[in-house]
């Protein structure tokens, strides 16, 4: 079965600072990868989606970007964080008709 690693688990950053969250997947190859954000008391919102290396689709306009430099690596970035970027970020992996599996998430607080 696949395992999804996310780090860091918790991050506190000042407004205007850069961001890099990393997600790696084990136990599968050529997965579809996803970044979701969960604001406090809300459901998950899909941010980015990738079907392969270098292929990124964005679901919502925002201050964030994503990259997939390797098959099982998915990175969420920002050049300048905003207060509204605070939240809980989850990476997920899925394939074809299989359910998506999630990492343990990163709690991001912007000061």
């Amino acid at each position: 079965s696949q395992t999804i690693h996310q780090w860091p688990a918790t991050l506190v950053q000042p407004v205007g600072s850069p961001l890099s969250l990393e997600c790696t997947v084990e136990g599968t190859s050529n997965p579809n990868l996803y970044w979701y954000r969960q604001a406090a008391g809300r459901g998950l919102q899909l941010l980015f989606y990738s079907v392969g290396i270098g292929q990124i689709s964005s679901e919502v306009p925002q201050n964030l970007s994503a990259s997939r430099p390797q098959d099982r690596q998915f990175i969420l970035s920002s050049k300048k964080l905003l207060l509204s970027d605070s939240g809980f970020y989850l990476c997920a992996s899925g394939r074809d008709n299989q359910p998506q599996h999630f990492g343990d998430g990163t709690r991001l607080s912007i000061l």
Partner: protein
Amino acid sequence: AQTVTQSQPEMSVQEAETVTLSCTYDTSESDYYLFWYKQPPSRQMILVIRQEAYKQQNATENRFSVNFQKAAKSFSLKISDSQLGDAAMYFCAYRSLKYSGGGADGLTFGKGTHLIIQP
């Protein structure tokens, strides 16, 4: 675009009793998947159960079962013999089977139902 609605922000049930969580969705597609995910305080997202829209038979996983009403676009989750470990946020989610580029393969989530188990 698809939408998923969970009309119960919070539900409470006595331990060992049965509880049903509601979910409705809106879509123009005929083929899709529906899921229930559980998010305990640790905030992990754990798959509870899934249903393929083309299957008429309701999915069952041990104490968890669904009532899938395709025409009504309703997908409720029933938890039997509730246990303290069932306490969590429960999210209903929709996934299109039709790839149309962009994030079409991503999940659309409801806002969740907070389930409290009373000992």
